Structure formats: structure tokens, C-alpha cells
């Protein structure tokens, strides 16, 4: 395949992602199908289409999600929502409390950074209630009449009617309930990673909104790690649309392009860090002379990867940032 075609495919996939972000799911699928016409083997386009189709089928069963969503807040507005909206809002509300705690911790961290503190401090791990709350949504058989189900949930026949209207009752169990929600993809081994990554991306947005660059970068990094740890088919549909945003998060954390990073650890301490060879390479280019912009040029890696590694090195305090004039760069 020529470079031109590869470029076209990439562009079309990006267009589709843009449509997806606008909520235009069918149009997004059309774009990705166009990409597949150019490159039938493109796994990214295949995965994105599969995901959105699942999502669309999920929307047809929206009331089922509403059951869980409504259970989380009694005054849940009576309007029709899409699954992403509801997931997002649910997470947002739960996150709010959690964010305040996290923000306080990260603010302390950022403040310490601003003071130029060296050395390490132990950071408290924030226990998130999200996983627990979303467990019914994400675990297999979440809607199978579990005793943990909220008392206020609508009765099962609602589902039964819906499924019958579609002309099929093959999903009906002896107990009269729908056993599996296809959108939840209970057989999908990447499901938990998908949920956690979504949470983390949302947390990242919240931290960014609260002007906590270090905390936002941490959440972004964690989301990416979830993505990397996810088994096939991966969770590209979560990470890829968020990638431009995550890049902005890393960029904001790393600071101005004219900032000059310098190595902040002794070789002995550095060797004890859990970095990979790419971080090692970038560290070897950092000499207290080259600035961020120049490092991006010479890293031999993509801009995204370079910013991500720089952010990781900053958070690990393996490097510190100087401005071009030797002043600590604003973060």
C-alpha cells in the first residue's frame, strides 16, 4: 500500500473519530467503512465499527442502563439519554467527590513542584467507588435478577415487551429476563479495561478542568496503561478518540516548548527507576541545553509518545524543568 493510501486511510479514520466525538455515530461508521474500502485489513477501522455498532444496539436497550443510572440518584432527570451520556454523568457525579480529594492531593503535589521541592513523597491512593458502582453494568449477568439490584429499578417485563416487539424471544430465560446485554459484551476480555480507561479519561478531564496538570497527566497515563494492558480486541474506541486530548494534557504538564529539562537524579537513583528503553533514550538526550521543542524533534518517537514520556519522567522527578533562561518553567 502506498504512503498516500495509508495517509488517506488515517485521515478518514480521524474524520470518523471526529464524527464520533460529535455524537454522529452512523456517520462515523460510514467514514470507517470508507476507510475499509481503501484498506480492507485495517484493524482499527474494524474495531471502531464493531464498537459503535455495539453501542448503537446498546442504545436500543437504554432503559436497562437507566435502571442502574437511576439507582444512583433518585432525582435522575426524566429524559432520554445515550449510554455514553449516562455513563459519563454517573461517573462525573461520583467523581466529583473523589476529584476533590484527588485535587487536594495533586494540588499539594503541584504546589510542591512550584516550590521546587526535590525528593519523593508518598502519595495516598484514592479509593474509587466507581468500580463498585459500575460493577452491575460491567460484570457478566449484571441484570440477571441479582439481589444487589436497586429496589427502584423498573420491572423486567419492560424488557420482555421490547424484545418481543423485535420479533424474537430467543433471549428469554426461564426466569423471564434477558440474560445478557449485548452492548456489555460479557465475553469481551477487554471489558474491565474499557471501563477503567473510560473512568480515567473522565478523571483526566476533571483534573484538567480543575487546573491540576500533574494529576491530569497521571490519569492520562493510567488510562493509556489500561489500554496497553487490555487483551484483544483492545479498547481503541476509548483511547483513540481521547488521544488528542491526552496529548494536550501531557503537553500542559510538560510546560512551554522553550522549557529546558535537566536530569534530576543521580545515575544510581536513576537506575532504580522502572523506566523502559524509550524513556532511557529520551533521558540520554536531556542535557540541560536542549529544550522541549528540540527534544520533540530529535526523539525519534511520535510527539505524543515523547510528551507522554517527558510527563512520566517529570512525575517521577527524574527530570526537572528549567525555562530557557534557567528559571523554573511555569507548569
Amino acid at each position, binding site marked *: 500500500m502506498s504512503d498516500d493510501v495509508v495517509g488517506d486511510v488515517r485521515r478518514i479514520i480521524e474524520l470518523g473519530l471526529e464524527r464520533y466525538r460529535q455524537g454522529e455515530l452512523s456517520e462515523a461508521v460510514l467514514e470507517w467503512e470508507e476507510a475499509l474500502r481503501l484498506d480492507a485489513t485495517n484493524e482499527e477501522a474494524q474495531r471502531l465499527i464493531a464498537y459503535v455498532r455495539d453501542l448503537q444496539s446498546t442504545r436500543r436497550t437504554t432503559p436497562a442502563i437507566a435502571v442502574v443510572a437511576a439507582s444512583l440518584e433518585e432525582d435522575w432527570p426524566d429524559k432520554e439519554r445515550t449510554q455514553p451520556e449516562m455513563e459519563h454523568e454517573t461517573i462525573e457525579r461520583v467523581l466529583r467527590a473523589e476529584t476533590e480529594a484527588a485535587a487536594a492531593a495533586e494540588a499539594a503535589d503541584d504546589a510542591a513542584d512550584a516550590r521546587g521541592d526535590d525528593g519523593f513523597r508518598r502519595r495516598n491512593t484514592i479509593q474509587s467507588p466507581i468500580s463498585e458502582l459500575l460493577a452491575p453494568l460491567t460484570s457478566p449477568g449484571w441484570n440477571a435478577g441479582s439481589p444487589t439490584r436497586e429496589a427502584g429499578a423498573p420491572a423486567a417485563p419492560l424488557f420482555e415487551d421490547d424484545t418481543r416487539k423485535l420479533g424474537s424471544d430467543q433471549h428469554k430465560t426461564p426466569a423471564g429476563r434477558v440474560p445478557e446485554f449485548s452492548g456489555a459484551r460479557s465475553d469481551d476480555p477487554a471489558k474491565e479495561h474499557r471501563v477503567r480507561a473510560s473512568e480515567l479519561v473522565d478523571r483526566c478531564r476533571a483534573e484538567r478542568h480543575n487546573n491540576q496538570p500533574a494529576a491530569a497527566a497521571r490519569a492520562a497515563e493510567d488510562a493509556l496503561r489500561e489500554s496497553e494492558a487490555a487483551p484483544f480486541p483492545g479498547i481503541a474506541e476509548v483511547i483513540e478518540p481521547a488521544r488528542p486530548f491526552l496529548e494536550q494534557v501531557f503537553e500542559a504538564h510538560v510546560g*512551554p516548548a*522553550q522549557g529546558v529539562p535537566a536530569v534530576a537524579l543521580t*545515575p544510581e537513583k*536513576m*537506575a532504580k527507576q*522502572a*523506566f*523502559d*528503553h*524509550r*524513556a*532511557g*533514550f529520551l*533521558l*540520554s*538526550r536531556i*542535557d540541560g*541545553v*536542549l529544550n522541549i521543542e*528540540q527534544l*520533540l*524533534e*530529535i*526523539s*525519534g518517537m511520535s510527539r505524543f509518545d515523547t510528551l507522554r514520556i517527558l510527563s512520566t519522567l517529570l512525575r517521577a522527578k527524574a527530570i526537572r524543568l528549567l*525555562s*530557557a*533562561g534557567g528559571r523554573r518553567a*511555569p507548569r
Partner: protein
Amino acid sequence: MPERIIGIDLGTTNSCVAVVEGGAPVVIPNRGGYKTTPSVVAISESGRRLVGHIAKRQSVTNAENTAYAVKRLIGRTWTSAAVKSMREGAPFELIEGPHHDVRVKLRDQTFSVPEISAFILQEMKLIADEHLGADVQKAVVTVPAYFNDSQRQATKDAGRIAGLDVIRIINEPTAAALAYGFGKNVEGKIAVYDLGGGTFDISLLEISNGVFEVMSTAGDTFLGGEDFDHRVLDWLVQGFQKEHGIGLTKDAMAMQRLKDAAEKAKCDLSSLQEVDINLPFITSTGKNQALHLQRTLSRSKLEELTLDLIERTVQICKLTMEDAEIDRADILDVVLVGGMTRMAKVQEMVAEFFGKEPCKGVHPDEVVAMGAAIQGAALVDKDNDMLLLDVTPHSLGIMIVGGYFHRLIERNTTVPTSKSHIFTTVRDNQTSVKILVFQGESDRADENELLGEFVLSGLRKAPRGEVEVEVTFEISADGIVSVVAKDMETGLLQSITVTASSGLTEEEIGRMAGESADFMMALKAEKEAEGARQEIEKLVDEADRLLPKVEVVLAGTPFGKDSLGAVRQVLSDARGAVDRRDAAEVERVREPLSRTVHMFRGLVQSARSDQDRDS
């Protein structure tokens, strides 16, 4: 104050710039504080041009788009041996130019060799401009003694493209000798042993009455410090393979780090007996575990790894001395040039060969640039009585019967000059003669460089040796060679004018110089815009810090709310301009932001004074 002329040592692997200040030559450090700048040019993935250290630091990971050692190519034709050798060994692509010259392809752009050299010269000019606080216009640039007219002309063209008027090209050993003899009254023969990053040259010079003459020069254009680095690199790679069973040669990032570390270790061993080489996270295993490379390299091990390379240089010295029929005892002093000569083993073997300790009074990396600066200063100093001669670097002549080379103008002849010689026909009834003009030092014409040819016809039919043809060579002050053949009987003339060519037309040079000037303008504008952005960022930072205090001061005042609203708008505009990197907007917000911060400072100061008074 006389005009400042900079001296540039445009090296194969590193370049250096110097200027005479307060009567003495000084080397100008670059922005990183280094006195030499790698002669490396790269185009990054984003299309940005990288020159010097930054280009070198990515030379392995972006090998196909990084040009180095282009000095080996300058002024050469596509079919020359040096070009063939580079085509086989260099990772960047070389293509044939429209005039049988060489072009370098970096990403989607094609550059002539003088253009690449111009980027390096431009960088050296920038270093000098910043140091001197002025726009330097003129330079003396050094070239190897063996460079022919085309190579010298190409170097001059590179200067033009870079926006520099190269007022003189001088031989590197001559420049080294000038710096060596600076402030001394040296008379006699000296040897200049130049082991640089990519090439080795040995030159024998005679200094007499202030005239520096290169008597003999030889060398190896593919032998230098990089070969020493490769030996260390191989040793590191093999050691790692042995220890971990992992080969690193296919890992570009690891190889880049190893190459840098090898060079650094080699340099450090010039002053230390052993060095530790630590490269953490050099590679990752399949289990996602990073491995570190840790080794100790001793000076004796380095010598063991590179002994044959040093021996090669000594062998070349031996042959050159024999060819020039100069006895080692006649050598007054040995001047060391090039960073590699700091290696103790090199100094030891040079001392052993010449039978005397080499001169250590000059800095090997800087001596050539300093010599060029000395010559540059002398050229504009009317009180300086130093004799500076522009000479022909090679002998000029024609091919005669049997394929031999007949010299009309010997090398090192001061220009302008003119010389004639009468030749006769070699065959009976010969009615025409073909004049083949060559440049070089070999007695065989075909081993020299052909500059041009023409035919003088209409000669009288006569037995051989009867018809006489006078051939006159003339070199103008601009280095233009004219050759005229005249039938002595009829006065019939035929001539050719040979102008040294770099392989570029006048139009091409003009266009490249224009592009280069545009690039510099854009660079300057970008720099100014960046300065303005940084200033705005600082002002916004200060305003943010002062704002809470100002809010307290203005609270309750009748104009507080409106003023603060306007101030917030100014701050918001400023942040937006910086984020968008909008130069025009940055310029627009600078003044109101500056006024705002000034006002803030005044308010906070006055509030503080009030508090102090109250307390």
C-alpha cells in the same frame, strides 16, 4: 575599529569559528558552550532543519535524513571515487545533480553539497553574530591542502549561500602553522599532523620570511576519530551480547546512545586512566524489563582496540616524508591538530616517529580556526606587515605526448601570474593540436584533474617538430585560468577560459542564497516572537500572583468591579495569544498587559505602604 573578519575551520566532522580580539585569536563558543560544532545537518520529521549538536544527537535514529561528512563530497563530480565510496557507506541518499555534481536527499528535499555546507557556515556565522553583537559579513575559511580549484570554489559558494563573503580560502595546515607561529619568529620546516573526526592529513610546511609553503601533503580521507569510536562501540555491543545474549545493533535508539557514549569515553580517556560507561535502560526485554549497560573501559584497552588505526597514520607520515625527501631530523616542530591527537597513544607514537615531542602549545581543536582568524585580521589591518599570498594550490599544465603532464605553473605560485611555453608538433603533417588542460601534481596527466580542452587547427603541414605552438597560461587575481594556444607562424589563436566551478550555476547560487536569507529572516522573526511570548508569559504570571491582592485593594471601591473585569479580559486575551502562538495578537496585548501589571504593582505597593503607616 576595523571590520571583524571571522576565521572558520569548516571540518569534516566538526567546525570551529574564531576571531581576533584584543590582538589575539579567540575561539567563539556556541550556545551550548562548546567550542566546536558538529558538521552535521538533518531534517527532522516535522521538516525542521537541524544543525550541529542537535543534529548529531539524532544522527542514528534519523540516519537517512542526517547528512554528515559532506566535506568529502564538496566540489566533486558524481563519478569521482570519493562520491562512490560515500554512496556505498553513507545512510543518507546521494543523487546525481544536473551538472554531474552531487545532491543530497533529506526527506523530500534535495540539497546541493555547497548548500549543506552553507547550513553549517550559517550556524558558525550565527555563533559569531551573537558573540560579537553584529552581523558578520566576511570570513576566511580553511580547506585541506589537497583541495583543488573546484573544491575551493564550492567552499566559497557555500559561504555565499550562507550570506558570507569568503575573502580568502587558506589551507588548513597553513592556518595551523599561522596559529602555531603567532607571536613567534619561526623559520624552518614543520610537520602538521592532523587527525580529525573523519580524516587524517599530514602536511610538511616550510616557513621562511613569513611565507608559509606547503611542501607536501598526504592523508586518508576515511580515517579519523569516528573509526576509534566504532571500535569502542563494537566492544560495548559485543560485551552486552555476551552478558545478556541480546544484540543491540538493530536497535537505533540503543546504537545512538552507544555511539555517543563511545565517543565520550574515548575523549575522557585522554585525561583519565579508566572510565565507567553507564547506560541505564539501554533496552527492554520481552518481559518488559529494562536492562542497563555498565562497563569500565581502561585507557590500555582503548589503545589495544585502536592501535592499528594509529599505526596507519604513522605509516602515511613515513611515506610522505620519503616522497618529499625530507629527513625527520630536519623537522623543527610537529604541530598536532584535531581532537584525536589528545589521545596519549597518538602523541606517544608521533613523538616516537619524529624523534621529538610534538608541540603542545596550541589547542588541537581550535588551532585551524585561530589561524584563519589571524589571517582574516591581517587582511584588514593596514599596519600588519604579515605577508599574505594567494597562491595556486596545485600545478597547472597540459598533456604532452606519451600521456605525460607538463607543468606550466607550479603550485604555490603567487597569483596573478602568467607563464608561456613553446611546444612543437609530434607527427609529420600534423595540422591540429589538442590542448588538454590539467591540474595536479602527478607526472601522468590522467592522474590529474582535467579542467578543459580545446583544439588549435589550421597548422601548416610540415615534418614533426617544425611547427611551433606557444601555450600561455594566465591566472587572474580572481583565480580565473586562461589558456591560449598560438600558431607561431600564422599568429592563429585558440583559447579557453577555465573558471573553477562548484557544480552550481550562478543562477542556482543566487536562488540558494535568497532562500538562505529568507530562512534566516524567518528564524529571526520566530526568535523575536518567542521572546515576546516569553515576556507575555512572565507578565501574566506576575499579574496572576498580584490579582488576589489587587482584588482586596479594589474591593468596595466604586470602580473595582469594572476595572477588574477589564483586567481579566486583558489577561484572558494574553493567555489566548500565547496559547495560539499568534504573533500579531501577542504584539497587540503586550502594551495593555504591561500597563496592567504596572498598575497592579503600584496598587499593591501603595496598599503595603498604607498598611505600614497604619501599623
